[in-house]
């Protein structure tokens, strides 16, 4: 009952409308709901991030606006709305205007296929995962538009970096999810979540709890961080190198839209990660079934966001060549091997044997590749030299 | 068919190999050349002795003739086959040739010791030997002819061995051409025989051209003038023999051939090659003796042979009487002896002729070698009038030479010549057609004895006239050996004492002398072993034959004749010492006759003015024709061709080339025009492509509509 409250609510609203308009109305309703929910989540995330970073950096976060500075996001929003909207003189006005939209809209679209609870997917597409990645592809375009349209070397460079990075990491991202798709035998998020139902003992059948699943999950998270330009892969807007990357020339609400788009994208990817590996809205333990599914989903989402914040606060930024080398020399082979491991897992009978096989198959290459990468990059203790 | 017959071919092959190797050897390899030649000859001698033995063992038994035939090449639908035959004739000739040849080889190592072309000489000698042996063993007229020609070639080469001497070169040419005339007839005979008989093999167990079926065919056929084909063929072949053996019309080359080195004269022009003609006749005797069916008595061919032989014998002997060159005298005596052989063949048969051939081969070789040794000792002096008294200087030569001389002139009992000549005379006496050959032969025998005595007196008796001989000899004689000594033996300074020859030259002389004596006893009427061997029937001793009236009378006559000749010669030349200045005795009595004889009946001149002159005139006429008529025609044709060519060129340049160039230009223009479309621009290609596609679609649609 409490689990299905949102579904019932939506059904009730739809029934109000005349029959001819019902599909349209249902779409509108779910879109509105998603926008509302994730906009607020975005607001929450901003404040949480700032505070978390503050704590990590051993300082207070925003604490002036409202209790504990909780109203800080609202203040930021007002500020963004009221700020003057600057457009460089010889910028390409149209593209410059369109870029943020092209970023935000697909991000929201991507959310449409995620099941955020039992029967709580806006649209249940047969090729949902593919759809997710397809609309995700638009991000790169928007980044390019932003960077190119605003006639600025820094923004151009940022855009180039961002696109290179995104294209490079899109490959491992998709490949690491292929394993799951193979095992679940479907592209639809609903079915994938179905595939992770059930428990053996007190262990849930989450894919993350298999060797290939774990590896895939880690790969996926790394790739996702790179996709959404999160640190330690935030070179496109690395302040110390290129002031703010591809959206230097944006101010006011468009800037806010970029921010929003980025965060929504991050949410979407994390949601997909949850759907693929963490059993979606399913509870980790059987007896916790009474807690509503959406709670589980958003809980997992928040925990992933926390993880992201933690990472951002702690890890240093990579160099460009390290970034690319990591993508092509480590992520890609690992993802491919992971697919092979998933295949073997699928075709060997359950038991300890296949555990061991898959573990070896994943761990061995990991060791080798990581060793090779380290050897390659000559990571060594820094030598200090003092002036006499 | 035993070993000897099977491997008969080895006998000619060995000297051939020797010749080949020697021809490749360098000029300085004298020992090699001589060693090879002599070794090969020795081996051949051994083989031919084996062959002789086998022939002898088979002689009494039925199988007297062993034949090996093989195919040479295909001619039309038949095969040309060659082969060799081993029969008494072959065997005995083989032994003779090998033996005499060997001796002469050994002799010439001494005689040619100082010649710088020693190697070449032995090469030629070996080649000659191989050809001669091949000729002997040949079982096919074709093979026979081939060897025959090679023999002729070697004779040419050896006569002209000192080709820097104009006389030698001329003599070589003369020999070659003269024999050619005979050979032409010979070749015609061969061709005719092949056309008529269909085979050239002598014996081909029943199919050979000397065997009954073919012979009968030939005899029955009749050709122009009511003459049997066999007779015609026989006469033609006999022409070849005439050429080779220097019989009457064609004898002129033989005396001149004496320009060659003396061993050559001994081997080729006394012992073997000239006898080849006789051997040829003996070989094809069945053909010669063939008479048309129904006719009896001796055949036409044999009659001709007999007459020619008799005439030649007297004729040459009479010439020899007046000659002064030692070798020429011997040469003419050779001719006359060959005539005797021919008579023997003609009237008596193979055995008679062959017996004289054998004996003559030995004693004539002996005489020639002796003459050679004389010449050698007198420093290349050849004029008998400038010699004399050599008896003391070279006793061995004198002894052997005397034996040879007595054999030749038919001194009774101890000398082979007597027996063989006696045989011939006896045969001639009992010839039914006419007695003239007999009388002629007698006269020839008389002359022979006479001129041999004369020569002996000139050369060996009296006082030595060598020193002053030098002055006269040069003017007395033609270009025969002008400047010869100086270049043949540069180191011998003239004049000097005549000296005896080295042992290498004397040994053959003595051996030959022995055989000259011995050989006669194998052919006496009492025990005619050789004749019977050749005829192929057993011989037995029967002394009573000697007392038989006819034989005894003939023997008596010939003895008387021989002694008369010797006595006459001694009476004329031997009593008082001779002087080379004063004219010959006969010359004083019958000068005209003597000059006639000395000039050889002017035969050379006659030939000079008739045949040669005709030939020269004809060639001049040909030259004139060539210059004025054919030349003009050729010029005319040439001009015509040039004109044509000019027209052609004009056509070529103006029509063909221009047209071609024009078309080429046109093509290239068109090419450039088309290549405009290939302007390398992608878009134009794409345009054309799409346009074409659209048209295609339209076509398809309309096609569907219409159908």
């Amino acid at each position, binding site marked *: 009952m409490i689990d299905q409250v949102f579904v019932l609510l939506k059904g009730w609203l739809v029934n109000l409308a005349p029959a001819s308009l019902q599909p349209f109305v249902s779409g509108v309703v779910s879109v509105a709901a998603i926008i509302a929910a994730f906009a607020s989540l975005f607001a929450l995330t901003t404040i949480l991030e700032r505070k978390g970073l503050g704590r990590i950096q051993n300082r207070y976060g925003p604490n002036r606006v409202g209790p504990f500075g909780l109203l800080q996001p609202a203040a930021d929003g007002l500020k963004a709305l009221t700020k003057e909207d600057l457009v460089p003189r010889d910028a390409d006005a149209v593209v410059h205007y369109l870029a943020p939209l092209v970023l935000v809209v697909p991000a929201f679209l991507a959310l449409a296929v995620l099941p955020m609870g039992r029967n709580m997917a806006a649209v249940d597409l047969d*090729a949902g995962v*593919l759809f997710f990645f*397809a609309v995700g*592809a638009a991000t790169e375009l928007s980044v390019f538009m932003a960077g190119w349209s605003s006639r600025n070397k820094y923004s151009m460079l940022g855009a180039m970096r961002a696109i290179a990075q995104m294209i490079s990491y899109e490959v491992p991202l998709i490949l690491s999810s292929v394993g799951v798709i193979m095992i679940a035998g479907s592209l639809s998020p609903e079915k994938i979540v179905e595939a992770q139902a059930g428990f053996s003992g007190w262990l849930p059948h989450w894919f993350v709890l298999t060797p290939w699943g774990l590896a895939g999950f880690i790969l996926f998270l790394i790739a996702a961080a790179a996709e959404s330009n999160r640190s330690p892969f935030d070179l496109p807007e690395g302040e110390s190198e290129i002031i703010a990357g591809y959206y230097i020339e944006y101010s006011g609400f468009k800037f806010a839209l970029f921010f929003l788009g980025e965060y929504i994208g991050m949410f979407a990817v994390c949601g997909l990660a949850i759907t693929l590996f963490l059993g979606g809205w399913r509870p980790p333990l059987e007896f916790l079934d009474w807690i509503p599914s959406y709670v589980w989903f958003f809980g997992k989402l928040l925990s992933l966001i926390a993880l992201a914040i933690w990472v951002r606060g702690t890890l240093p930024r990579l160099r460009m*060549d390290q970034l690319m*080398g990591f993508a092509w020399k480590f992520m890609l082979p690992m993802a491919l091997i992971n697919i092979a491991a998933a295949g073997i897992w699928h075709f060997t009978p359950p038991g300890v044997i296949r555990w061991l096989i898959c573990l070896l198959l994943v761990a061995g290459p990991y060791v080798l590749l990581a060793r090779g990468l380290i050897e390659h990059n000559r990571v060594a203790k820094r030598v200090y030299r003092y002036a006499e | 068919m035993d070993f000897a017959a099977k491997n008969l071919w080895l006998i000619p092959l060995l000297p051939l190999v020797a010749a080949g190797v020697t021809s490749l050897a360098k000029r300085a390899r004298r020992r090699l050349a001589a060693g090879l030649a002599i070794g090969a000859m020795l081996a051949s001698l051994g083989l031919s002795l084996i062959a002789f033995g086998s022939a002898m063992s088979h002689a009494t038994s039925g199988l007297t003739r062993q034949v090996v035939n093989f195919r040479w090449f295909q001619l039309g639908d038949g095969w040309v086959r060659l082969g060799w035959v081993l029969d008494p004739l072959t065997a005995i000739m083989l032994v003779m040739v090998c033996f005499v040849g060997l001796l002469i080889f050994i002799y010439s190592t001494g005689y040619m010791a100082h010649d710088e072309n020693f190697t070449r000489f032995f090469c030629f000698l070996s080649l000659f030997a191989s050809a001669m042996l091949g000729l002997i063993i040949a079982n096919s007229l074709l093979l026979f002819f081939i060897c025959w020609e090679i023999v002729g070639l070697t004779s040419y080469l050896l006569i002209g061995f000192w080709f820097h001497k104009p006389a030698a070169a001329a003599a070589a040419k003369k020999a070659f051409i003269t024999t050619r005339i005979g050979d032409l007839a010979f070749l015609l005979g061969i061709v005719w025989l092949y056309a008529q008989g269909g085979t050239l093999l002598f014996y081909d167990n029943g199919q050979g051209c000397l065997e009954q079926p073919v012979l009968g065919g030939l005899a029955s056929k009749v050709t122009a003038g009511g003459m049997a084909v066999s007779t015609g063929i026989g006469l033609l072949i006999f022409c070849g023999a005439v050429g080779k053996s220097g019989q009457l019309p064609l004898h002129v080359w033989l005396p001149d051939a004496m320009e060659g080195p003396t061993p050559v004269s001994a081997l080729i022009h006394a012992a073997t090659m000239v006898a080849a003609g006789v051997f040829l006749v003996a070989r094809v005797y069945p053909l010669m003796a063939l008479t048309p069916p129904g006719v009896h008595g001796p055949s036409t061919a044999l009659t001709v042979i007999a007459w020619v032989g008799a005439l030649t014998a007297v004729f040459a002997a009479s010439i020899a009487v007046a000659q002064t060159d030692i070798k020429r005298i011997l040469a003419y005596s050779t001719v006359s002896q060959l005539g005797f052989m021919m008579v023997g063949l003609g009237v008596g048969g193979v055995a008679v002729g062959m017996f004289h051939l054998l004996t003559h081969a030995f004693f004539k070789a002996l005489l020639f070698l002796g003459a050679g040794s004389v010449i050698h000792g007198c420093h290349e002096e050849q004029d008998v009038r400038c010699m004399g008294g050599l008896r003391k200087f070279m006793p061995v030569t004198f002894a052997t030479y005397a034996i040879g001389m007595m054999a030749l002139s038919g001194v009774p009992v101890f000398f082979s010549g007597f027996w063989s000549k006696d045989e011939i005379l006896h045969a001639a006496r009992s010839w039914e057609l006419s007695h003239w050959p007999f009388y002629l032969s007698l006269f020839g025998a008389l002359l022979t004895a006479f001129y041999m005595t004369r020569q002996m007196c000139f050369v060996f008796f009296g006082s030595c006239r060598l020193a002053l001989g030098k002055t006269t000899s040069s003017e007395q004689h033609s270009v025969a050996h002008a400047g010869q000594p100086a270049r043949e033996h540069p180191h011998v300074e003239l004049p000097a004492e005549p000296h005896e020859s080295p042992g290498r030259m004397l040994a053959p002389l003595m051996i030959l002398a022995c055989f000259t004596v011995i050989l006669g006893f194998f052919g006496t009427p009492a025990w005619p072993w050789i004749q019977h061997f050749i005829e192929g029937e057993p011989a037995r001793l029967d002394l009573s034959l000697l007392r038989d009236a006819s034989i005894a009378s003939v023997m008596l006559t010939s003895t008387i004749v021989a002694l008369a000749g010797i006595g006459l010669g001694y009476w004329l030349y031997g009593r008082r010492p001779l002087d080379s200045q004063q004219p010959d005795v006969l010359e004083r009595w019958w000068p005209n006759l003597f000059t006639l004889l000395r000039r050889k009946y002017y035969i050379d001149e006659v030939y000079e003015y008739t045949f040669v002159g005709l030939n020269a005139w004809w060639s001049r006429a040909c030259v004139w024709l060539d210059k004025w008529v054919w030349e003009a025609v050729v010029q005319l044709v040439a001009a015509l061709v040039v004109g044509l060519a000019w027209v052609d060129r004009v056509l070529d340049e103006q029509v063909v080339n221009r047209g071609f160039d024009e078309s080429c230009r046109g093509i290239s223009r068109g090419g450039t025009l088309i290549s405009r479309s290939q302007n390398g621009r992608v878009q134009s290609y794409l345009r054309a492509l799409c346009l074409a596609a*659209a048209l295609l679609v339209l076509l398809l649609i309309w096609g569907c509509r219409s159908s």
Partner: protein
Amino acid sequence: MTLSFAIIGAVTIASAIAAMTLRHLVHCALSLAITFAGLAALYLQLQAQFVGFAQLLVYVGAVAILIVFAILLTRGSGPETQPIYSSRWLAGVVVAVIVMAVLGGTILSSKTVSAHVEAAAFEPSVRRIGDQLMTRYVLPLEVLGLLLTAATIGAVILAIQENRPAKPGGHQ
């Protein structure tokens, strides 16, 4: 439905025209991306979900970006100075019009096409496509993989800079 088709079709065609006519290369590329998106929408209308998404993923996500990169690498980002149309543009237009006429005429006049007005209603599942690819079209699939590999290597070799020192792990 018809309305959405009309809108999508209009947008697609308009953006295609824009991609072909705009003076600025980047604009052309962007409007090309819009065309691709419109095509993807048309596929979705034809109930070819998988193909539609694949179209989006490949064309919008990869090809368009590739083209943009190419434009930037060939210094095409600035506005064109020389005329953008080739000297024989008129002929090209004429050809295109002819082709258009032929195709349109064929389509409108063919009875077989006009016969199909109603599509058989059915729900294609991605699973079926997968099965087909793995069973019936497996060999073409393998060949395709080979082709893609070859094309990748070839493109890299073609576009790689000759004058660059071969330094492993260098800045790019």
